[in-house]
């Protein structure tokens, strides 16, 4: 059974000037163990689609099936990493990471243990009592990642997680993300990442879904067969990047 299935999902927003159609008939499946990237120009509704998958908003029409069942409200098997980090400024790193665990009613001792593990995993050991405003952008996103991993989700959703970071930090974090995904003792086996950077999608994902804008439509579903670790200077890499780019361009 597929982990996640979207059937003819559409989304419109009510505006003063009429309904704004953001997504149009999106259908695809995600199997167990896949790393999926969703690319498209801004305004194609990819972030909206991610939120529909998480259950933050319902689709206007169509269905979202998680493990064969329609989701109702927030899907607690998922965890999201936000573009703007979305950390609570008045909570320490530790308290932020424990947030999801606390919401699920995990006991304090157990919470602390798990949080420590994941804070360590993202390389922020020693920063447990720091406040977000004392951290750099890369560190803040690491906290966001730790927070998502701490609840040990089946499906990790990432909304342009590295777009707000400088290029060097982003490179480092991408590598760390791949390490986490590939290590055996990490609970997360599925990742859906939304990004506007095509190279990022080709570097990270097994599968690339290409969305076009106005309104958002799925125009292509490409498999990425390149062996990891992927090298941007290789011919195959660039060929794939060009292909994705042309797919976006011709539909623009």
């Amino acid at each position, binding site marked *: 059974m597929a982990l996640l299935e979207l059937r003819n999902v559409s989304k419109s927003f009510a505006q*003063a000037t009429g309904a704004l159609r953001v997504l149009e008939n999106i259908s695809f499946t995600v199997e167990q163990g896949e790393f999926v990237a969703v690319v498209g120009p801004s305004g194609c509704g990819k972030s909206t689609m991610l939120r529909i998958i998480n259950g933050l908003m319902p689709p206007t029409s169509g269905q979202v099936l998680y493990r064969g069942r329609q989701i109702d409200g*927030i899907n607690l098997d*998922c965890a*999201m990493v936000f573009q703007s980090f979305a950390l609570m400024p008045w909570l320490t790193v530790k308290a932020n990471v424990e947030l999801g665990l606390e919401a699920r009613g995990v006991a304090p001792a157990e919470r602390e243990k798990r949080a420590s593990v994941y804070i360590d995993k993202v390389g922020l050991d020693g920063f447990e009592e720091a406040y977000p405003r004392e951290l750099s952008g890369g560190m803040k996103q690491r906290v966001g990642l730790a927070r998502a991993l701490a609840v040990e989700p089946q499906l990790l959703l990432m909304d342009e997680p590295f777009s707000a970071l400088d290029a060097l930090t982003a490179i480092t974090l991408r590598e760390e993300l791949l390490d986490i995904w590939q290590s055996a003792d990490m609970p997360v086996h599925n990742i859906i990442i939304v990004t506007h950077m095509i190279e990022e999608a080709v570097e990270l994902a097994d599968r690339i879904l290409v969305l076009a804008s106005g309104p958002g439509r799925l125009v292509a579903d490409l498999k990425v067969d390149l062996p990891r670790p992927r090298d941007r200077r290789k011919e195959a890499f660039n060929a794939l990047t060009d292909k994705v780019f042309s797919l976006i361009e011709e539909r623009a």
Partner: protein
Amino acid sequence: MESNTIAVRRLTSGTIAFLLIAVFVALFFAYERHGAKLHAPRIHVAIRNLPYYAFCSFMRMLVAYGFSLIFALVYGLLAGTSRAYERVLIPAIDIAQSVPVVGFFPAAIYFFVSLAHGSRIGVEMAAVFLIFTSQAWNMALGVYEAVRTLPTDSVEALEVFGASGWLKLRRLLIPACVPKLVYNSILSWVSGWYYIIACEIITAGPAHYQLPGLGSYLMTAADKGRTGEIIAGLLALLAIIILMDAIIWQPLSLWAERFRYEFAASTEPIRSLGMLDALGSIGPTVLRLIQTVSRPIARTVRGAFVSVRPFNPAEHPALRRIARWLRLAAQAAIFFFIAWGLIDGMVALARTLARPWPAEVRQIPLATLASFGRIILAYAISLAWTVPCAIAASESQRFARRLAPIAEIVGSMPATALFPLIVLFVIKLTGGMNLASILLIITGMQWYLLFNLLAGVSQVPADLKEAARSFGLSRAATWRKLTLPAVLPSLITGSITAWGGGWNALILSEYFVYRDKTYQVFGLGALLDDATYRTDNSLMILLTLLSMVLVVIVLNRVVWRRLYDLAADRYRIEY
């Protein structure tokens, strides 16, 4: 050592501030010797006069608002763009805000009436001045905040192109002030209505001043027991407020959204006014009509100047020198004017204090305590309903959208208009004024709390709300971890303003004359009003006023400032 110097500086600035206030207050009283008798026009309580009275009150509000707007822009821009001015102007406004407006009613009357040599213009000026003092400070602070929080990127972007001062003003500074100005204008009008009702009839000792207007109409009607006319007056007031909201404030708020600095696209649909939509389009239509005439004129005028070479001050050293002398002369004039006022005030202060102190002075400390207790109770009750309202607004968009206009309208209805009815009703029930007084204080506090809380709730970043929902936080956990910490700064700002309003309401509510009967409770406000209306003892007025101001300033420094620093430090949301 550094903390010591800061503490010392704070102490000295506080003392200086207090002394300055004492001196200015005394200055007002210096004019007591010119107190003139005024033949006030009689108020005819008849519904057909209502439109005229409503118009009078509205015009007074408009004039005061005009002054407040100009003041706010000049003062706020000066303070926001120049560090030197900021150091003087902002503490001055802090102090001005702490002084209860209502306490100055008699003093302002004395001052302006003597200035106008006893004519009615003097009383009108006094009323306009009082409304101005209730409106100007928060607007000026709004402008100041807007200018100070301008993103430096935007400022630099304009400077890089060599933009002149005027261009910066027109394209950057003034547009940046628009959202805060609109928001604070709405608050200022609410404040204004509250005080105008109370200040159209002033009884200061033997003198009795009345201005034609809604306030005096309502008071006179209440005095004569004409309930039908009272209701008509209240309805007229309500109609004005609703019409202003629909025609002016709602469209203005929508337009002001354009000037907001935001980095995420908003998916919230813009508020629709429903059946009042037609009214909302009146403003823009009128504006467009005016523009069809004004635009061509402006274009021709500008065209005439295009051929003139742009004026570069650097090329005219002589003019520069003249300008510098002019500026020095202006600064000297202002300095001497203030110095003269201070000296005159100090003399008057010394003279007043030298008089024999009345026996009632001994009651001041206990009275202060009693009044303080009343305000705390009123504050607690106000919090008890406004915080849950704000939390409900944070959870449901629809509730927030419905609540905002209702709160604006109900909150705009000046409780002062209902004072007589409330007092009588409660007295018939309980026989004492304590409850009535507390109720009236609540009416003067709760709206500030509510509006600030609602503003804070609306500013909770969407991504934090999404994160909370995404991780499955329960409702209670969301309040604890997200909503309440996020609105803490707004709660504190709202509380500071609410306490200011509370002191004003206190003065109005602890002492009440109705149908020649005096209702009062033991408190600082009652002492002040007693001294004003009954004994006309200016020394007593001065002492009670100063005690009140002292309490307010101490509270501000010791409690509110610390809380605000804490909130700004730990609970600030920034990226």
